């Protein structure tokens, strides 16, 4: 079975739920993507920028101290060492090469924490393209350094004042911009969400994570891992890690969502219901009348009320297991990695670390586990400090 099918469905999830105005643009994008991504020159150029500009391959690091504490064999896939500090650059590079081939001169993007916005501003600077990034006003206040980073890189950051003034509203506003300026504009979505072909395209561009991991672990351990663990917001670092192992049935996938403060959270797969948001059908946080609810997490990157349709499919066919980790638990993961390994992880990635620590007693001793360390934590220091001060 081909996944997704021609209409962009992973099982019953995905599709294209958009205004008619975007129908043509999505078809144009899909045909450009499926055409160019198969071409040798595209693949070579993408590989070149991933290696020379972004800094791939990233190490697969054996975390000896963490392993000893957990009674497991834990490797960290170091996406945090990439240029701009997170896996987001993989997708931004892939899509910008596509955008150039499509001849579009203006690029728009949405951002929550600002990591994707920074990645897009970076690649637009690199290729001399006009860049406008939509960001909720609340997020702009919470992530001021990233706003400044984007501006340094020549991007215009547009505050979004509607709705909850966070990522979901930035997404809606970017879609409205695209509806208005569709002919000359490339919309560079940052995760495996949105209408077809975005979920498959972003997953493919991020699959470098899993492909490298597979080659590296075979070399180091001469076998495949027992578990892959990654955090899930929209789902791009996790699908990038999981997808190349899809057919390796012995490898178990652990997706970790944000359980926030339990009352409010970002756990769309664990706690949401099937619905339609931002162009695709998947699990969505919504009230009993089908209105989208606000998500919350200490980590801005997991603070989204939807999730990629491919994850919904993995959940439905039980290919992956999904868990939710609270702010407090995630901070535990954050600290343990700082103190035991000398690595300051992003709060997003800390959720995956925390889940592995939680599971450690329940799974077979010395199981081989790979954790996707999707980003570095410098951006989160203020948040961590504030949290610790307010919970003393």
């Amino acid at each position, binding site marked *: 079975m081909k996944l997704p099918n021609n209409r962009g469905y992973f099982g019953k999830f995905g599709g294209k*739920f958009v205004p008619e*105005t975007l129908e*043509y643009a999505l078809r144009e994008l899909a045909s450009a993507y499926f055409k160019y991504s198969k071409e040798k020159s595209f693949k070579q150029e993408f590989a070149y920028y991933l290696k020379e500009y972004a800094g791939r391959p990233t190490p697969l690091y054996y975390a000896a101290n963490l392993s000893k504490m957990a009674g497991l064999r834990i490797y960290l896939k170091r996406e945090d060492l990439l240029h701009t500090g997170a896996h987001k650059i993989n997708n931004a590079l892939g899509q910008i090469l596509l955008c150039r081939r499509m001849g579009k001169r203006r690029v728009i993007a949405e951002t929550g924490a600002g990591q994707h916005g920074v990645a897009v501003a970076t690649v637009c600077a690199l290729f001399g393209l006009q860049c406008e990034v939509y960001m909720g006003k609340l997020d702009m206040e919470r992530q001021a350094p990233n706003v400044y980073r984007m501006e340094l890189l020549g991007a215009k950051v547009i505050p979004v004042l509607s709705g909850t003034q966070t990522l*979901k509203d930035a997404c809606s506003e970017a879609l409205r911009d695209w509806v208005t300026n*569709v*002919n000359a504009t490339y919309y560079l979505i940052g995760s495996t969400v949105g209408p077809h072909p975005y979920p498959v395209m972003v997953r493919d561009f991020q699959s470098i994570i899993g492909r490298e991991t597979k080659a590296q672990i075979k070399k180091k351990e001469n076998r495949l891992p027992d578990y892959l663990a990654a955090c899930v917001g929209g789902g791009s670092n996790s699908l990038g890690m999981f997808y190349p192992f899809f057919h390796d049935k012995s490898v178990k996938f652990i997706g970790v969502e944000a359980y926030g403060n339990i009352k409010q959270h970002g756990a769309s797969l664990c706690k949401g219901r099937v619905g339609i948001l931002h162009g695709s059908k998947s699990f969505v946080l919504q009230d009993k*009348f*089908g209105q989208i609810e606000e998500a919350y997490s200490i980590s801005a990157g997991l603070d989204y009320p939807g999730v990629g349709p491919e994850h919904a499919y993995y959940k439905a066919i039980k290919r992956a297991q999904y868990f939710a980790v609270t702010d407090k638990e995630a901070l535990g993961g954050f600290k343990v990695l700082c103190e035991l390994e000398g690595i300051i992880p992003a709060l997003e990635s800390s959720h995956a670390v925390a889940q592995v620590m939680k599971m450690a007693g329940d799974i077979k001793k010395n199981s081989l586990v790979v954790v996707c360390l999707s980003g570095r934590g410098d951006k989160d220091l203020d948040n961590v400090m504030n949290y610790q001060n307010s919970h003393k």
Partner: protein
Amino acid sequence: MPKIRDLFNQLKQQNKKAFIPYLTYGFPNLGVFEQTVLAIAKTGVDAIEIGMPFSDPIADGPVIQRSSQIALEKGATLPGLLLTLKKLRRKVDAPFILMTYYNPVFYMGDNSFCRKAKGIIDALVVPDLLPEEGRSLNDHCRKYGIDTVFFIAPTTDLGRYGLIDKNSSGFIYYVSVTGTTGSRNKFDGALYKKIAAAKAKVKGPVCVGFGISTHEQVKRFCRVADGVIVGSAIIKFIDENHKQKNFIDKLQRFIVDLKGKEK
């Protein structure tokens, strides 16, 4: 035959065009909303489009976004909308066209929604549903006698006109601009020709909407299309005037000025 096609057939015989105002359900609050529907119905409009507010209305500009947010804060829900319209149905002859994003309907279930909306809603418009994704909802609408409306946008290629026509049992909604709802000072000069070309290609009636805010624009579009839909301009008027004395009179005059007096 469902009410909407009847309406357009009648108008055609009389050589008239449809004027369809849009109201956001629950705006500026549930009580005033009901009064505005009754007031507007009395001005002799041909149908009334009612918008179900949604938390993330990606096809709407700032005016309708704002009205939706306010209405949701006042407690607007889809079941509530159906109850209110059921009540208003007894006093209003003009057909009700419901505009809603897909998620609130999907949440209720296509079949369950259509069963509940039967006899209350005459036609359904879902701005984030392409005909390709709308098969299930379309089938259920047919079953319960609700007409469906799909869109043609300036970016739609001719190859899709047939599909859109076939799926639109009510009328075809021609989106006048590449963009979101909200008033425009100017329209693309080639637009009128494009609408005329679309009309020649499809069998169903074609109504134009998005950005229409003056009587001149209404008149201009009525020359090429079967009707017009005016939304944001009315919402803006309600927003600015609903607290004033004589609001209902003013609103009725505003609507009459927009659509023009009967000849």
